[in-house]
């Protein structure tokens, strides 16, 4: 592959990153509206309590935890597809692998929101994380919920660095400039 051909491929690849049409902004407004609606609902839930979420005694976990598991599952599927395509060394794999890796990272980020939304007092969510506080209270490492935090953060770090997602972004930034 000569240099001219490489440049052409790179230009084709990076065009949607560098040039945006009006539709892009329409979609941004639409999806941004969904985000604003979600944030509003969350603030409403925080002010009124989880009574608005339809959860009751004795079933204390409901669709927030279900959503968490669902999105983690989607994320696992992304990793699985990308890993299998890598392992069998399929030459046509590149675009599929990229899609799968992006799904992994973003589905995980969506999933990681739900345990926090699920909390009764979400403004204290950082008590789930091990950090040296002035009270020297660490989270209870026997609790599976603390290991949820470790699982999500490990998976997020791993899928960002080990699946070449960040290196690819770095390369595109190099060509773009």
């Amino acid at each position, binding site marked *: 592959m000569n240099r001219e051909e490489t440049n052409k491929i790179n230009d084709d690849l990076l065009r949607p990153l560098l040039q945006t049409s009006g539709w892009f902004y329409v979609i941004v407004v639409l999806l941004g509206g969904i985000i604003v609606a979600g944030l509003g609902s969350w603030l409403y839930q925080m002010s009124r309590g989880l009574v608005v979420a339809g959860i*009751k*005694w004795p079933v204390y976990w409901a669709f927030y935890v279900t959503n968490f598991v669902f999105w983690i599952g989607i994320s696992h599927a992304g990793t699985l597809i990308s890993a299998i395509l890598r392992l069998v060394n399929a030459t046509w794999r590149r675009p599929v692998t990229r899609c799968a890796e992006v799904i992994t990272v973003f589905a995980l980020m969506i999933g990681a929101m739900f345990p926090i939304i699920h909390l009764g007092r979400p403004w204290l969510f950082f*008590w789930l994380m091990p950090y040296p506080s002035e009270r020297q*209270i660490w989270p209870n490492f026997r*609790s599976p919920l603390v290991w949820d935090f470790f699982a999500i953060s490990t998976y997020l770090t791993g899928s960002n660095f080990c699946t070449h997602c960040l290196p690819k972004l770095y390369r595109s930034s190099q060509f773009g400039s």
Partner: protein
Amino acid sequence: MAHRWGMAVDLDRCTGCEACVTACRAENNIPTVGPVQAARGRAMHWIRVERYYEGEFPDVRVKFRPVLCQQCDAAPCEPVCPTYASHHTEEGLNAQVYNRCIGTRYCANACPYNVRFFNFANPVWDRPLNLQLNPDVSVREVGVMEKCTFCVQRINAGKTQAKAENREVRDGEIQPACAQACPTTAIVFGDLNDPESEVSHLSRSTRGTKLLEDVGAKPKITYLQRQS
């Protein structure tokens, strides 16, 4: 010797009058949620009286069982709490630290007895109940789990009184609100580490059983009933 608080509930004496439920609500500042939310399963009863019907229609016998936190020795709610809000005190009580609770509700899911209650909404007391709040008991915020404490404020007050008078706590001196209100004295509270206390005698009774014993949570409440 450290205390180990326990309880014995004589089901043959229980008439199901629910005086214990009312007394508990008054003593422990338990908020009311109103009829609509109560029907949706958001009522909080630290102690409840379960009803069981035996026999066919004309020949029915109703059995009552007051169920409250069993203050388990191997409590399933404790290891699952990520913030140690649910923890074991030196006297074997199953304490809930409201200020540490962030409302993951894991403890309530782990509890086999369904005796943990969550503040789904901001706590309210219908007038004039707001005028009778007990100053010895903290009011819980929205998003916090709460449950029976064996009236820990009364236990501490009793111990302080005994210390001030330079003596040991007498058996029967400390009574939680439910035991105090029980007209048939079906509920007996005391120190299980004192082999001569009434609750120790009752706990050794051949009529005694534990609730859901096969779960292995080692509850400290013994239910007494005629074994047939």
